[in-house]
């Protein structure tokens, strides 16, 4: 079948990600997988399903719910989790606000993006998780380009980018003390295009908002934001109807849509291959705060 013993790039990336997942299942006591219903976590969950088949996925999935998610995505999340028979833990930012752990931001640029970190770290502590799979990729952002596959977090959940554990070959140091944890990124070496190619090859289902649809939107700082009850729209930000799709899926308050007529995976891939703008640059308000916005949030314990 493979006389030259060649593997495609997707086969190599899949083999690497599955190795990582099995390593976590073998070496940690209480791992969990962060699942948002976005495309990267959909791929990650599909890889977990494959890694342990015919057994069930040997860890629960967790969603940090800001309360500002797209309803289509939450519906998809619940259906997918039910299909797999895995346990879903929802950590709610609203609960953190109600409990006085965090204070809701106010004003026009109010977002729960940054508040998620506290909810996430509280949930990790409460559930005593020692390893958490995240779908982050190194091609997404320059601070992420520096991060290890197995990324150590101290007992405050903090990342110390200047003092990362050397990571050689496929040997991962999984040793931690109680209270510390490891963030594990099986898709580290995947690019946005690899993720889409894999979704196409494996015929993975994704939420409908990834495909072109009609939506009421308004423009802010060059982003097309969906009309939604969680964001204060100014008088200078009129609503209009546009044919858009989402390139990333996050909070409704800070995730922008892109103008698109791509109605199929093949059309989305063609657009992604041709685009001249990064996905976070095109769609995320949360990265625009400063040059090092992602590094700063990651240091605090963000995804």
């Amino acid at each position, binding site marked *: *079948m493979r006389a030259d*013993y060649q593997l495609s790039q997707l*086969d190599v*990336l899949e083999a690497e990600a599955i190795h990582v997942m*099995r390593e976590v299942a073998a070496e940690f006591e209480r791992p969990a997988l962060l699942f948002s219903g976005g495309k990267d976590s959909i791929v990650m969950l599909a890889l977990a399903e494959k890694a342990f088949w015919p057994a069930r996925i040997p860890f629960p999935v967790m969603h940090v719910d800001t309360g500002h998610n797209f309803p289509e995505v939450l519906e998809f999340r619940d259906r997918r989790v039910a299909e797999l028979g895995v346990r879903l833990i929802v950590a709610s930012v609203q609960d953190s606000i109600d409990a006085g752990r965090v204070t809701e931001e106010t004003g026009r640029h109010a977002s729960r993006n940054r508040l998620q970190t506290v909810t996430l770290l509280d949930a990790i502590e409460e559930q005593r998780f020692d390893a958490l799979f995240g779908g982050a990729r190194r091609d997404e952002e320059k601070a992420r380009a520096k991060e290890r596959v197995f990324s150590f977090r101290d007992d405050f959940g903090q990342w110390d980018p200047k003092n990362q554990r050397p990571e050689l070959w496929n*040997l991962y*140091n999984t040793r931690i003390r109680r209270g510390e944890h490891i963030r594990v990124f099986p898709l580290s070496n995947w*690019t946005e295009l690899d993720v889409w190619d894999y979704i196409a090859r494996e015929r993975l289902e994704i939420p409908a908002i990834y495909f072109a649809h009609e939506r009421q939107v308004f423009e802010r700082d060059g982003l097309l934001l969906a009309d939604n009850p969680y964001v204060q729209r100014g008088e200078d930000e009129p609503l209009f109807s546009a044919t858009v799709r989402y390139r990333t899926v996050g909070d409704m308050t800070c995730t922008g849509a892109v103008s698109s007529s791509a109605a199929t995976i093949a059309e989305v891939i063609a657009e992604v291959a041709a685009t001249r703008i990064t996905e976070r640059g095109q769609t995320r308000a949360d990265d625009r705060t400063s*040059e090092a916005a992602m590094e700063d949030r990651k240091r605090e314990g963000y995804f």
Partner: protein
Amino acid sequence: MDILRFATAGSVDDGKSTLIGRLLYDSKSIFADQLEAVERTSRDRGEDYTNLALLTDGLRAEREQGITIDVAYRYFATPRRKFIIADTPGHIQYTRNMVTGASTADLAVVLVDARNGLTEQSRRHAFLATLLRVPHMVLAVNKMDLVDYRADVFESISEEFAAFAARLDIGDLTFVPVSALHGDNVVDRSANMPWYDGPSLLHHLEHVHIASDRNLIDVRFPVQYVIRPQAATDAALHDYRGYAGQVAGGVLKPGDEVLHLPSGFTTTIRGVEAPSSRGATAIPEAFPPMSVTLLLDDDVDISRGDMICRPNNRPAVAQDIEAMLCWMSSDRVLTPRSRLIVKHTSRTVKAIVTDLHYRIDVNTLHRDESATQLTLNEVGRVRLRLTQPVFCDPYARNRTTGGLILIDESTNATVGAAMITEAT
């Protein structure tokens, strides 16, 4: 389309960041918003050119100090290949990060400045790439524009490097004269150097043959995880026991007779399964670096950390190991009698350093046999005694079964990496 992983070594002064920027830019892998951000920052900092190093230096401290501290991974693709660049720091104080980047590389690009010729740093980079057994090396003689594209400058640097390389064990060495700033011989052949008849750097990266770098002879399957569905309700799955792992060497097929270590029992492969969520998953064979599940004929007691190989081709079952070791800790030194944790394939054991034979000067290759310790970023030849055996091969034969990491038992930090030379 396959993947080539390559590491770049050299300092900002050698034009490494410019070269990477050029590869990314000319292969249309830099996005408009990234370039805008870099241009804006360059302008704000009062620099009169677009500083492409800002693309790769992602950490605040790196931007402030203008140096690369840690490995950054970059991705680009051409119609022929997908590339993963491990962009590694050139300064000696970040040797451990260069070692990290080189450990998985298929190819290393060592940069030199044509005006300065070979430096201590270029020799060190070549040595470390060889130590990590990166199978292919390219010496990129950069800034050819500043020496008027002269053939004799390129030839004399190439000859000097070839003489140095003869003392190392480099499998495949290629020389390319480039100007990263102007793009000569980076993506396209340069009209400024008609005397050079070799390929451009990118052409070489696209065509270098890496499929045979893997060991497809010695069957090595470290058992990583045992899959047992324990589904009492499903009769078909009730007795399922699959041995999951990533193939480290050789080709495994159903019907092959295999030997299990440490027990020494032989059995036969009943099936090879690819990861799948859709039922039929049997595949005719498995080879590196596939992650697969093996089904065996006999009910042998097999667990994580064990090894599956062929009866007539076994790894060493070793408790005493000779190795080249790179020390990576600034908090602790390595001395004879140091106690450490060793992680090798899927096995973790305790170890004691029984001997430090010599320290090697990574710049001159001089061996100092009077050395009594290794400090951060130092490399030496050691002997380790393990509390339990590992199933290993010389690193030169297999990078997976020949490599190990060392962990400090009290801090849990990764403090070293070692390449096995002999095992008994």
